[in-house]
């Protein structure tokens, strides 16, 4: 488990600057929530943490993101290596629809190195158990991943991210497209994962942030307004704007 320390991070889409010198850190064994109104740059910040931001045409980032002490934006760092160690789950479930559930779960393991079938099976089972999907799919691992329900698909995507055993897990509103029951499952899952992973999650849901995170980062217009332990954030925030936002008075 490794820590992430962000300092003076800015990001652009073309000319438009969407992150303004962000500082934050995410500690191993904890859940860090990023909250803020729509368009404030939460997804962009998250995508900067595993160098996915630069995949958008015209997008670039500048600053430092120290992962276990090493700057992932440093010279000679291959984004492919970064992404293998820092996993990501997206807002919209995006399993590979023509691949089977099994193939989806081990998709990341198929990259780069070759692995024996038995080991793949073991890793798939472990990841699917961790994401809480195993009991539902164990008899139909050869079914196409696209045939699952939305909530199941999202848990399949989480399993896919976990199977490569990343050191950090980034999640962008992983439950926003799901019903309350599936949301609850995913929240429980995050609680279980946090002992073994460093989890950073973007959420729109204030209660969710309060329930599952240890640290909370509040952003506004691409800037960090406040970064504090979740309890403090939701009871005695330092900044007036944070208070307005978490109590729902933000306008």
């Amino acid at each position, binding site marked *: 488990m490794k820590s992430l320390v962000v300092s003076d991070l800015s990001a652009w889409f073309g000319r438009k600057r969407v992150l303004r010198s962000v500082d934050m850190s995410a500690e191993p064994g904890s859940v860090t929530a990023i909250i803020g109104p729509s368009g404030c740059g939460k997804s962009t910040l998250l995508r900067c943490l*595993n160098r*996915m931001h630069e*995949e958008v*045409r015209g997008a670039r980032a500048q600053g430092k993101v120290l992962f276990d002490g090493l700057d992932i934006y440093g010279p000679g760092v291959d984004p*492919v*290596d*970064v*992404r*293998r*160690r820092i*996993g*990501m789950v*997206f807002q*919209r*479930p*995006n*399993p*590979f*629809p*023509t*691949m089977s559930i099994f193939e989806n779960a081990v*998709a*990341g393991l*198929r*990259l*780069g190195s070759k692995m024996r079938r038995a080991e793949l099976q073991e890793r798939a089972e472990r990841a699917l158990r961790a994401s809480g999907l195993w009991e539902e799919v164990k008899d139909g691992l050869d079914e*196409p*991943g*696209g*045939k699952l329900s939305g909530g199941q*698909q999202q848990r399949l*995507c989480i399993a*896919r*991210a976990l199977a*490569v055993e990343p050191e950090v897990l980034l999640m962008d509103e992983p439950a926003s497209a799901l019903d309350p029951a599936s949301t609850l499952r995913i929240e429980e899952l995050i609680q279980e994962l946090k002992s073994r992973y460093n989890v950073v999650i973007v959420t729109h849901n204030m209660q969710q942030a309060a329930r599952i995170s240890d640290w909370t980062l509040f952003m506004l217009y691409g800037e960090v307004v406040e970064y504090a332990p979740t309890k403090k954030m939701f009871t005695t925030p330092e900044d007036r704007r944070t208070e307005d936002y978490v109590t729902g008075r933000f306008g």
Partner: protein
Amino acid sequence: MSHRVAEPGAASARLGDRAFRGLTLAVGMGLIAVLVVVLWVLAQGGAPALARFGPGFLVGRNWDPVHQSFGALPYVFGTLVTSAIAITLAVPVAVGLAILLNEPVGRAVTAPLASFVDVLAAIPSVVYGLWGLAVLSPAMERHVEPFLRATIGRIPILGRLFSGTPSGGDLFTAGVVLAIMILPIVTAISREVFSVVPRDLREAAKALGATRYETIRMGVLPYARPGIVGATMLGLGRALGETIAVSMVVGGGRSVGASLFAAGSTIPSVIASQFLNAQGIGYHRPALLALALVLVTISLSLAALSRLMVRRTARLLDGGSVEGAAEGPALEVSG
């Protein structure tokens, strides 16, 4: 108030809807009718030859108007072989080009290349024929074919395709000309296909740590496959029917052997060169009409086959998060 305003609008919208549906239906039926009439005319005209020669019409190798003996095998063979060469050469290039153009980087090189490929579509087919005759044939005879014979020609089974005496005017040269002629359409449709593959899947692969090549293999190609099949079929349709350019470079022989360096003929080329002289009594004219019927049958069967292949993959995609993304372009196959 707003209710009264809305009503006539809604009614006329429904009327427009009905009119549009009626029109679409009429045009659709019209097209089917045209196809049926064409098939009917060909079947009617070709019937005497088919009745006279039976299955021998398809497997016979002798096509001799003077002695009234008609076996179409060399022409069917030539058509299938030249089209197969064209597809084999053109599809990988077209798909590769389409992939490159879909990538966010390297446009400076690939974009001009793409415009060049588009321009190829505007060249009349007789010009391709002239170019094939004047430039390509000699080059094939002197350089390309001897080289292939000396290299691939030595491999046990595959080598038989590249054995024999290079002549320049042969099935292989015709296939190469056809490949260049169908490149633009296959490229254009493949590009369209790649551009509708959802970003989600590409990002899913990237976020797992896929390299650019792995991203294409894992997050792009599987969803583009039905569309590429469609693009291939359209290209194949053009290759099967191409007449002038092919007849100028294919050599006019009647080979049915393994060597691609032998002179052959295709169905369109033989119909174009003989039909005007086939007005007399006898089986020549029916035989040519029967030949046309065979060509149409081949095209239609391939189109039907491609629909089946596309359907199978599309059904998988439908259940997923990419509702029918790859179905769109494939619809054009039947056209």
